[in-house]
């Protein structure tokens, strides 16, 4: 049974892949001019990719935990309304990078951050920035599912309620749509009042995704959202990502190479806190320029 499913998903992937190829070709042609100008500005980068319409611009970002650098001199632009994958071996700083984008690292004692991160042109580390507003615009799905000890409904309604939505019919609608988006609605529609902690691990993860998309963030950060999921749920989440990226920007961390290839338009490879290579996904997987990237994506790493 599972074999058949896997085969089916591989087939689907090939189709998707073709789409991606077409799309990125277009992009490259369209914006050839702008890229030249950009490249003058960003001389110091370790990769050649130019993004014409970036929503997130990270420049020379270095983060240290108690003096130990976790990410070093990151310089990368993330394109609007696309999915960007971040891959790399465990401990290379992927989560840390993601958490820089919604300033979640602020909470940890002993963290020092240098460099700048701009979202829609605004420096998010500026002292005038309202961090809660920022976090409403930059949603996050965590590596480990972390539902609140509340009912399923309240988990999803948490974000909208914070934004001041009180009308129960509006909330009902948001909850249903979000759960549908996360491919969970059918399983939980009869038990919305039950504790979220009574769900299985995979269901909890999808609940966290529903919770994150309920506030309709501009940028959605997903830290290994499918690590706990079975192939069917994974497929659903991947479909969701493909759908969401029409309107949202998605940054996804994954250890699953196939997944990165399937869902992302761009891929960044990180190693020991640095971005080693950043390019359109096809190039990273088929024509990597860096030896380490090649070793990693082909599974020869380590």
């Amino acid at each position, binding site marked *: 049974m599972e074999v058949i499913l896997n085969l089916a998903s591989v087939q689907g992937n090939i189709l998707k892949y073709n789409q991606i190829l077409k799309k990125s070709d277009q992009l490259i042609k369209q914006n050839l001019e702008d890229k030249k100008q950009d490249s003058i500005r960003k001389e110091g980068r370790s990769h050649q990719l130019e993004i014409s319409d970036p929503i997130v611009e990270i420049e020379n970002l270095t983060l240290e935990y108690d003096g130990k650098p976790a990410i070093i001199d990151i310089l990368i632009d993330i394109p609007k309304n696309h999915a960007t994958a971040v891959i790399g071996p465990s401990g290379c700083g992927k989560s840390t990078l993601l958490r820089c984008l919604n300033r979640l690292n602020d909470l940890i004692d002993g963290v020092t951050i240098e460099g700048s991160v701009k979202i829609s042109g605004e420096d998010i580390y500026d002292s005038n920035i309202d961090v*809660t507003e920022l*976090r*409403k615009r930059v949603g996050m799905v965590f590596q480990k599912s*972390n*539902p609140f000890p509340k009912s399923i409904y309240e988990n999803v309604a*948490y974000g909208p309620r914070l934004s001041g939505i009180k009308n129960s019919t509006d909330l009902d609608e948001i909850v249903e749509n979000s759960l549908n988006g996360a491919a969970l609605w059918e399983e939980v529609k009869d038990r919305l009042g039950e*504790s979220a902690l009574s769900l299985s691990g995979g269901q909890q993860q999808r609940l966290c995704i529903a919770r*994150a998309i309920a506030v309709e963030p501009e940028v959605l950060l997903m830290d290994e959202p499918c690590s706990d999921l079975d192939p069917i749920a994974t497929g659903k989440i991947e479909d969701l990502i493909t759908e969401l990226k029409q309107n949202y920007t998605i940054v996804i961390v994954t250890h699953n190479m196939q997944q990165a290839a399937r869902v992302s338009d761009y891929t960044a490879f990180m190693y020991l806190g640095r971005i080693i290579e950043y390019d359109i996904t096809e190039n990273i997987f088929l024509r990597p320029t860096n030896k380490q990237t090649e070793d990693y994506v082909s599974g020869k790493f380590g």
Partner: protein
Amino acid sequence: MKKNSWKSGDPFIWLTGLSLVFSLIMIGGLLFLIMYKGLGFFWPSDIAVIELNDGTYYMGEISNREKKPEPGEAVAKNKDSRIQLKIGNRDLYGLDFKWIDENQIKSIEYPKDAVVLERLEWGNMYGFIKGIRSDGTTIATGNVESWPVLKSLLPKTHEIHKEIKRIEKKKIGDINYNISQLRLQIRKLELERGENKSSIKKLEEKIEDQNKLFQEEESKLTSLYKQLNQNRITISTIDGREKEMSIGTIVRAYRPNSMSIFEKLLIYFSKLWEFVSGNPREANTEGGVFPAIFGTVLMVVIMSIVVLPFGVLAALYLREYAKQGLLVRIVRICVNNLAGVPSIVFGIFAVGFFIYGIGGTIDSLFFKESLPTPTLGTGGILWASLTLALLTVPVVIVATEEGLAAVPRAVKEGSLALGATKFETTWKVMIPSAMPAILTGVILAIARATGEVAPLMITGVVKLAPDLPIDSHFPFIHLERKFMHLGFHIYDVGFQSPNVEAAKPMIFTTTLLLILIVVILNLTAIIIRNYLRKKYTLPGV
């Protein structure tokens, strides 16, 4: 291969099991002793008439039996036993109890028509009815004829008692309250020293009106008391003495030797009910303990209401807002140690700080007119509750801190990542998650507070409080009032009462009641906690 039982930890398991069994036996034994001694108190036991070898008779309830102690011997070796007889009739004999050597006894009989009269004063009377007179004329003579008459008269006297109580408590209480309020108003006006002679005059007239009302109620009372003392009963005791008394002083009359188990049960429960719902009599050694139950529960409830927010807020600050460092660590250690400070120290602190400090200041600012009589500047249920809150707040702080620490960091970050502020996260995620732990703290606090007596003795508990802290006079809850407390009641009845022997069973019953109240209060908190647990988490997590 031989299994190494030492390494596998079997002896350790036995040890844990053994300690549990030991604790259970201790607790069980204590509870059994208290129940055995306490619950038997209300049972109407048979009345024995004992004839001694020298021809004297004694009559009463056999209440104890023991080996006769020899002077100079620590452990009684003597084979002879002696029995303790509750002979009652304190007005005649002076003592309620009599020890009788068993080898002196010639015979024991249980005459069918022996009566027990429970009285408002002087304790029980044991004897035989000789006759009943109404307004000086004899209406019944002899045991057989008088018993039904007595039975029919008792309900009427109970009605009259109720009416008297209603007038005294409600009517006259209201009038007294009004008068004292009017007096205070006058005094206030006098203190203001303005030109308000006319309004003072008006108030004085009102006082006159109230006084007239008082006279009316007084005359009603006098006639009721006359009715009460109309019928008189004469009892002859076993040693041939006679005693005449008003039927109005009799609470209950029964003949245990001719009663069935069922009838005895009825008496048992009616006595039990009187104990739980009635007011104390005879220096607390008889009657009920309702005011003490009420005071204890109210005090614990006020304490919980105060200690919960205080402890939770303090713990929140320590764990979530304060910069974690040496200072916070020191504060935390201090808080933990505070839980070990002897409670009397808290009591003394409360007298100085709450009563004289805060209470005295409030009095001099807002209750000037009633000075020098203090209103809040003296012990009261509010101050006692606050003292206990102070005493138990470390428990709640520690439990809450542990609860907050147990909330996974990821859950907190999840809330923040959705754009919640720190306050929203604390309020909507952290506190609900920590609620079971917080309630565990409150449960421990309640258990400690209910059992505490020492600090209360100097902050507002009294032997006999004239009024409950809640009544029908505005503002209905009078937290400045003194109150009664079961724990203090035990101490008072056990060690301060003039009639310790008679009060002994009362101590056990009161203890039992106190334990019962602790259990009920705790069960309530536990049920709430389990409900919250089920609502928020997996069963058993």
